[in-house]
């Protein structure tokens, strides 16, 4: 049984098709990033997964149950966007309360430690900074030790330092064999933290694979070297080369297999200087995948 099963869901708001017939199966234990620009339909899709948004079509199951039922059984924890805390309570009271709603919660001290809140446990919720509130919301999501954890842009508005600590905590949580699905538009977050990346654009899944596969799909890699005054003719006929650009005295060869290109490059008789092999950042891959949709 899949941890998350989304079958042909669709949702429109007025004339806007937020999500169009998306299907996605996430086996237990996988960490999945849903990547997409703002307005791609990430939050709507997550809302449908959690039962907060009713799909116009299709169905969602979490561990074989409808979302509301899965929530009632304590199988789900979530950090949704825009979730302020209630006032006049301490961090410990809020997190302890949410954990206590679940049948088999994590010990409260462990939760606070995981979320980096041990020193803030007695502080009132109204006196926390934005980043601290975010950590409390993360603690609330994991307090019940849910099998499925869903995080909608969990690190939005966090500084780099806090973000790093945050992902360390999330990876620790995932190490217990839990299923995690998170939405982000920070590409490096998807690259570094997910087993699988699902790219969403205009309400549709446009790519689905490991971070490496996504990068490969988006046009492969380049071999670049200083050409100087040497002729560029013939470079495009080298094996595995798909395109050649020459500018500023440099030649850039596009290829899916840079090893073969480099090997054949040395047999051309050209003088090869300043050789570079580059793999496009996930950002480039992401742009090339979503831009075609526009």
């Amino acid at each position, binding site marked *: 049984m899949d941890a998350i099963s989304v079958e042909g869901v669709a949702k429109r708001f007025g004339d806007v098709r937020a999500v169009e017939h998306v299907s996605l199966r996430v086996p237990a234990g996988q960490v999945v990033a849903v990547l997409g620009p703002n307005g791609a339909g990430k939050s709507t899709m997550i809302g449908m997964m*959690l*039962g*907060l948004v009713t799909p116009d079509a299709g169905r969602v199951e979490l561990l074989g149950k409808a979302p509301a039922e899965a*929530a*009632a*059984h*304590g199988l*789900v*924890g*979530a950090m*949704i*966007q*825009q*979730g*302020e*805390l*209630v*006032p*006049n*309570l301490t961090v410990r*009271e*809020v997190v302890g*309360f*949410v954990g*206590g*709603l*679940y*049948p088999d919660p994590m010990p409260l001290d462990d939760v606070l430690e995981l979320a980096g809140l041990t020193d803030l446990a007695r502080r009132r919720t109204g006196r926390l900074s934005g980043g601290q509130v975010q950590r409390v*919301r993360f603690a*609330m999501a994991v307090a*019940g030790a849910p099998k499925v954890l*869903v995080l909608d842009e969990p690190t939005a508005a966090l500084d780099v330092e806090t973000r790093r600590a945050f992902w360390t905590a999330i990876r620790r949580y995932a190490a217990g064999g839990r299923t995690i699905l998170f939405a982000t538009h920070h590409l490096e977050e998807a690259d570094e933290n997910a087993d699988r990346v699902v790219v969403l654009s205009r309400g549709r899944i446009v790519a689905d694979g490991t971070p490496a596969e996504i990068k490969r799909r988006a046009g492969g890699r380049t071999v670049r070297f200083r050409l100087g005054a040497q002729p560029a003719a013939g470079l495009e006929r080298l094996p595995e080369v798909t395109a050649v650009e020459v500018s500023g005295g440099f030649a850039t060869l596009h290829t899916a297999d840079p090893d073969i290109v480099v090997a054949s490059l040395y047999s051309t008789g050209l003088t090869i200087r300043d050789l570079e092999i580059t793999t496009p950042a996930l950002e480039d891959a992401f742009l090339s995948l979503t831009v075609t949709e526009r």
Partner: protein
Amino acid sequence: MLSYLRLELLQVLRDRYYLSFALALPVAFYLLWSSIFAGDRPDPVTGLPYSVDIMVSMASYGALGATLMSTGVRLAAERRSGWLRQLRVTPLTPTTVIVVKTLAAMSLGLPAVILVGLASVLWQGVRLDLLQWVAITALLWVGTLPFAALGTLIGSLTGPDAAQPITLGAYFGLAIAGGMWVPLSVLPQVIRDVAAALPSTRFAELGRAVAAGHAPPLSAGLVLAAWTVALGALAVVAYRRAW
């Protein structure tokens, strides 16, 4: 369910706004009015000495305010802030949430009832049977039900910005027309005509009847029950849509 009730009560009991409006104000008003209308002269409408009549008025006023304030404004704020959505992904069910919120709102009226009663005993030497005190407290607890429903209705329909003035308006309107601020006997006839049908008048009447030594009239119970059913039905519909 108990942990949620505890959380709801804690939030409000630590709120300075609640402490001043729902607790300090009714007690302060009692001390003030009972000193101005001193003496055992009975009120022409209720027949109660002023010290007792004002005690019931202020206890009812405090309970009414606490119940309205802790439902409407907070529910609107929790809908806006995403806190309710956050609770939806936990094992807490919407029914539990609304039942607990109603219980909490009703119970948050109790401190005012008890403190005003205490002030009347200590300041004006009011003496009632223990059973009367228990009955007044219990009736002013159960009797807040229509106001909890009204608050839930306001909180489900409006945003936090509108909920605040609407709640205050309902609060003061119900309190004044219900004879809680000044005795009904000095209010214009128009208001007195409307007052008989208002839940706040009938709510205070529960306490006044017991204080005068007899059971509340059936009409008071019927008016309150009718308001509870009507507002409760609307509140459930509105809350379902809002949740």
